[in-house]
């Protein structure tokens, strides 16, 4: 039945062709663009959200901004970078809308020097993502923006409307919490870490 299949006027795997067709308001191209970048946008959105609904809202709003501002996209730059920026801004907007309370810093549990890359390798990517998503919004935003997306504390402070110090503090706390979660996921490592970092009195009791 291939002879009866409607041929598209663009290559659905070629992002430039799809974008060009989208600018002509070609409905097939618009659908193709969504299909082409859905996974990428979804993975970004998941990092900034704690639950599925938030992630879908970020995803939907991101595509809405993409199609609304597609005419402003400069083809000389990479579309994925432009799209990434849109998703991050959308996620920040969502964070600002929901998280008005500044994060309170917990006592510094200390740096885990025994932490090795093996500990991370033993955990699946889905588990790591889930750990990141389980952070509080302030920690998650700062950690994701700094550690994964590569923004500076100054940029993060401007984007989130916080001070650089708060950004640094939140990042440090986020790391420690993540490390603890990773240790918990590795029972052997966690046991060694826990024994070593227990308070002296408690250690004696044991």
């Amino acid at each position: 039945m291939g002879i009866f299949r409607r041929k598209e006027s663009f290559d659905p795997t070629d992002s430039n062709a799809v974008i060009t067709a989208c600018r002509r308001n070609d409905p097939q191209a618009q659908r193709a663009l969504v299909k082409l970048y859905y996974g990428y946008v979804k993975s970004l959105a998941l990092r900034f959200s704690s639950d599925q609904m938030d992630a879908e809202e970020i995803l939907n709003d991101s595509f809405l901004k993409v199609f609304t501002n597609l005419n402003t996209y400069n083809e000389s730059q990479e579309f994925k970078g432009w799209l990434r920026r849109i998703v991050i801004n959308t996620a920040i907007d969502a964070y600002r809308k929901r998280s008005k309370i500044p994060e309170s810093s917990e006592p510094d549990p200390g740096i885990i020097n025994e932490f090795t890359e093996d500990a991370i390798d033993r955990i699946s990517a889905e588990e790591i993502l889930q750990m990141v998503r389980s952070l509080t919004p302030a920690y998650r935003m700062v950690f994701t923006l700094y550690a994964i997306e590569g923004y500076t504390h100054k940029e993060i402070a401007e984007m989130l409307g916080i001070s650089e110090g708060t950004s640094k503090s939140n990042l440090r706390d986020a790391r420690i919490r993540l490390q603890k979660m990773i240790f918990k996921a590795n029972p052997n490592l966690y046991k060694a870490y826990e024994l070593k970092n227990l308070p002296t009195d408690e250690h004696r009791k044991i």
Partner: protein
Amino acid sequence: MNTERFDEAIRKKLEGLDQKPTEQEVDQVVQHLTRKHVLKPRTGLRLSTVVIGVGSVVLVAALLFFALRYFNNDETSVNTPLIDNTADSLAKDSTAPEFQQPVTPAHMDVQPLPGERDLQLNPPQPKESQINAEIRGNLPRSGVRAYTERSSNSLAPQEPGKLITEDSNPAVTHSADGTDRVSKSGSEAEVPSGISGNQNIPRTEDTVETSLKQKVSAFSAEESAGNPPAVILQDTMAAEPVKSAVTESVTDQPGKTVPVTGGKPGNFRAELLRVGVVSQLASENLTFGAVGSFKLANGLGFDAGFRYMDFSQQKFDNKSDFDRHDHRKKNDRFDDKLRFAEPNAPISIHSNLIQVPVAITYSIPLPRRFSVELSMGTDLDLNLNQRLDYRGRPDSTGAPRDERFRTQGGAEFFNNLIFSAGVEKQWKSLVFQFSPFLRPQLKQVFYKPRETEFGFGLGVYYRFGLK
């Protein structure tokens, strides 16, 4: 492990988490964007919508078809109180001596039949019984409806009380005292001396009606002798029974339904619905109509609509010229009229047709929102209207009489195919179409003069949906 290495390890771990989306997930995003008016709404047409839509078109077409067929049915009689008072008089005086005289108009095939009363028609023949009933109050309504109208120059003053006779059709007249009467105009040369005995009723309803009117007219003319000059009934009055006939023919069959059946259309999903106006120009006709189209995602589509086809007027120099060109036997329905046409006067026929065009289409997309559309279908003929203009023989005043004779019905439902290969250009929600076509006749019909017709169509559609 320092923080940078930790961050990098996390970053690497989270890379490559992109998952290929399902169609449902993509649909959800597209629907969200559509609700936000960022994307144009998709048709939303599913298989059920296609079936309902196509079924509705077929149902409407079928209802129209059967309504028209019913209306054109010979057995359908519609009460038409055209000559009520005359019929009463006729019933009362049907044994008058003048009715005992045989009627021998030149254009009627008259054979004496055994019978007791004037106008008493043979009971075994349904037509006659129908006529017998109609004489008592109403005129029968035939499948081929016809009436005659006169030009103004036919309204020559008649001598009061003069017997007005000889014509193919009678006309209802209004006398000065407000009483409707049926009279005839024409010379006395062919005046039937009366109606007597039983008569062989011609086959066509038109002739039946004509002969009936003649009988009535003859009697009425006798009765109306001495009355003031008659006034010929205007066209609109003659047309009124037609409307009632249409109404009654439809309402006479309540609950008549047409079953809608549809084959299994498969998993094809409708991608587009569009509605537009289309005009086709061919060598001898021009059509206007409204067409709706369903387009499937695989390029296939279905078109259906309604169309009015206006044929070019056929003109003949004289009766001989008409006969010479009458290879389609137009005389079958016009013979009775043209028998009294002036031999050297021009004759013209004007026809129009109501059609239901249906077609299967296949679209091939081209760059720049152009596309080629191939189509194959047929034009189902629903209703034919014809008008014959000729000049009748001079009446008693010697003035020429321009006659106009209208007929309706007789269309052949399925008689042709139509192939077209057109080009379409989409602009916003509009689609402009140019489509040359070839229309071969599968069955020759008298109202379509050419065996194969060609021309081109122009259309403008408004599209609903994504394509």
